[in-house]
């Protein structure tokens, strides 16, 4: 067992070495000398941090010598980035960072590649759950994979995030640095001077805004009769005032009268609203009065339509270590890549991030999910398969006992 893992990590490390030695134009973080770096090594999997470099050449030399499985750098700038304790580093500021991770977004493809096991009752299933549907325990062991559908979902969510950042917060597309993480998601970094000194509270408030957290109906409704309220903002207003009305509208367009009835919205008022939607468009929402509960139902769904699911912890943390662009993700072997807005919109992100394009690899597979990266497997059990190198590396790294290497072709 130990022997197999040892060989695997040696093999992957060799592949990483080839990449790091042949790759040249490494991404250079702004003020590199003020950043802390962290590396995970292949041999023991532990993180070595509190390391700093004077320039990109020094960093690249280090990476080529060590050949790490993961490379991270701090979103923060420090006076002494290599000080051993966070308190001694002398925090000078931090980029504003957003993280979109498909792990947090419900997707249909998860049932084709993810599985879970309850550590409490022992039951298993496919897809992704947080609570065991059989015994209610939260002690769940998950096995997750990423496929191109996941990446597409995360990409769409990232476009939504960019809409918030430009429409509401006024950042131009040029001020946003967009990265694919080499695994399940995307990062956006902003290093504009204005944002660097923002404290955690201010960053949290931005994250709450983007996630649509804390919206209180009081600020959007006015009582016009006993128990009946109207929505007081028009589609021409700004911020969530506009987003709510837009979100309610797109939600209602997707719903039939029957759907709404099933959801418990069966009043004459809702019928009137639906009739008016056809005539007035979103303005119809300013033409009706509804009960508080009806509005709350619509708000809830409007927020779901409009919100962007970011991992708020990443945005709030002002001392976070994040993946270095152009480094390889140790779990997938994919490259962390920088994308322009156009590339994010139009290009095949997965293809761009594949480094190990050459050769094939023969594996013995006990079990394998139906979809992995851009491949489909149908009913593959206890079989020998040949797959391209990039896929083979991911399968081996993430497959545990289910997948083993036979030979490199």
């Amino acid at each position, binding site marked *: 067992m130990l022997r197999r893992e040892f060989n695997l990590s040696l093999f992957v490390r060799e592949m990483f070495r080839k990449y790091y030695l042949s790759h040249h134009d490494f991404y250079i973080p702004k003020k590199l000398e003020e950043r802390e770096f962290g590396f995970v090594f292949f041999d023991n999997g532990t993180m070595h941090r509190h390391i700093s470099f004077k320039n990109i050449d020094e960093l690249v030399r280090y990476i080529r010598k060590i050949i790490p499985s993961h490379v991270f750098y701090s979103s923060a700038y420090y006076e002494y980035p290599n000080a051993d304790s966070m308190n001694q580093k002398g925090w000078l500021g931090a980029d504003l960072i957003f993280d979109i991770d498909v792990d947090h977004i419900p997707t249909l493809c998860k049932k084709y590649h993810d599985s879970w096991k309850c550590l409490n009752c022992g039951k298993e299933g496919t897809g992704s759950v947080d609570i065991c549907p059989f015994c209610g325990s939260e002690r769940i062991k998950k096995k997750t994979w990423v496929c191109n559908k996941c990446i597409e979902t995360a990409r769409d969510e990232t476009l939504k995030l960019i809409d918030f950042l430009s429409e509401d*917060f*006024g950042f131009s597309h040029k001020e946003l640095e967009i990265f694919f993480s080499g695994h399940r998601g995307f990062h956006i970094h902003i290093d504009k001077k204005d944002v660097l000194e*923002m404290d955690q*509270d201010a960053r*949290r408030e931005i*994250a*709450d805004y983007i996630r649509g957290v804390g919206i209180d109906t009081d600020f959007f409704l006015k009582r016009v009769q006993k128990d009946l309220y109207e929505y007081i903002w028009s589609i021409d*207003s700004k911020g969530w005032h506009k987003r709510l009305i837009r979100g309610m509208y797109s939600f209602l367009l997707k719903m039939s009268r029957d759907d709404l009835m099933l959801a418990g919205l069966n009043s004459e008022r809702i019928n009137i609203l639906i009739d008016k939607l056809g005539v007035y468009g979103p303005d119809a929402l300013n033409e009706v009065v509804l009960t508080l509960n009806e509005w709350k139902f619509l708000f809830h769904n409007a927020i779901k339509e409009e919100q962007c699911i970011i991992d708020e912890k990443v945005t709030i943390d002002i001392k976070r270590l994040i993946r270095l662009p152009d480094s390889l993700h140790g779990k997938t072997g994919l490259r962390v890549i920088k994308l322009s807005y156009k590339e994010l919109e139009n290009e095949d992100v997965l293809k761009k991030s594949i480094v190990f394009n050459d050769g094939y690899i023969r594996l013995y597979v006990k079990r394998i999910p139906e979809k992995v990266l851009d491949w489909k497997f149908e009913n593959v059990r206890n079989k020998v398969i040949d797959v391209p190198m990039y896929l083979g590396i991911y399968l081996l790294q993430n497959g545990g006992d289910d997948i083993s290497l036979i030979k490199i072709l």
Partner: protein
Amino acid sequence: MAKIEVTLTKGYFLKYPFLPDALKYISELGLTLEDLSYDTLGNEVIRRVKEIFDAVINSLPIPPSGDDPDIEVLSYLVALIVLKIIGDRSLIEKFVVVLSKKYSEYINVEENNFLLYLATTFGWKIAYGSEGKYMMFFIDYLENIPEYRGRWKLVHRQVSKGWVYLEKIELLRLIESGLKKYMAKQISNVNISEVQLPDPVYTLVEEISMVWNRKVKEYEKVRSRYLKKGEKYYPPCIRSIIEDLKNGRNLSHSARFALASFLLNIGMDVEEVLGIFRFSPDFREDLARYQIEHIAGLRGSKTKYVTYKCDSMRSLGLCYWECEGISHPLQYYYKAVRGMPPNVKKRI
């Protein structure tokens, strides 16, 4: 953005001695601290500084100034020096709170242009929009709002292209909080060491420091009466975490932190907190002890951590309640112990 021009007379310096123009005017007079200490002007200044601190420390309104702007600006300057030397964070906080309240009374009746001038003095990006509204850059807005909820919560604001739209009354509130930060910054920027102090100023520092220490001891005596009360005084968020723990649920990292830091802050020691964490299904004494000692400030960074605020608890998904008038779990606890438990509503 166009530069905002305001002509300031000496009358403004009397009202607003913190203004950079006021301090510049005084420095142009070429007075040194030495000069201050030995003549009648000096005596007047020292008397005024004492008067200000007496009001600050005892939470009383500041007595009105005389009609000499020189004395008022100099007193302000000496007060900054005194604060810098004593270096006590709570005293500085008290000072800026009381003084910003006083200045705000004048600011509230000022014209538009002066408000914009003040805002730009604080370094804010701000503009006068249409329909009587002000537009403020969102980062300046976020750094100065009194709380992250209710009308101030960003989801409840008109926000577009980086600008947050404000009513005049809201801008005034933000200016008050901006002023506090501005004064705190002035204090931290004071560059002086004790050696440079002439005797009368040195005596003044000692005197104020003594009065303040006496007050702090009084506060602590009162505080000790509130420590380590029963679970029924805990806010609903903390009670719910304890319940989860007792029901054998695995707690998230942030829930553990919230609970441990809360218990430590109401006076429990590490052993007592460990006792509560023992209910945890995956309890490991060595790990738990390490974490709790860290939060208590006995390890690592040696900082004693304070519990998350309500805003943070909400973002972390640990709070599902509205506790009337409460912005921090510890505030709930102190109120409850005083026999005034806040009204609690469950949020949708």
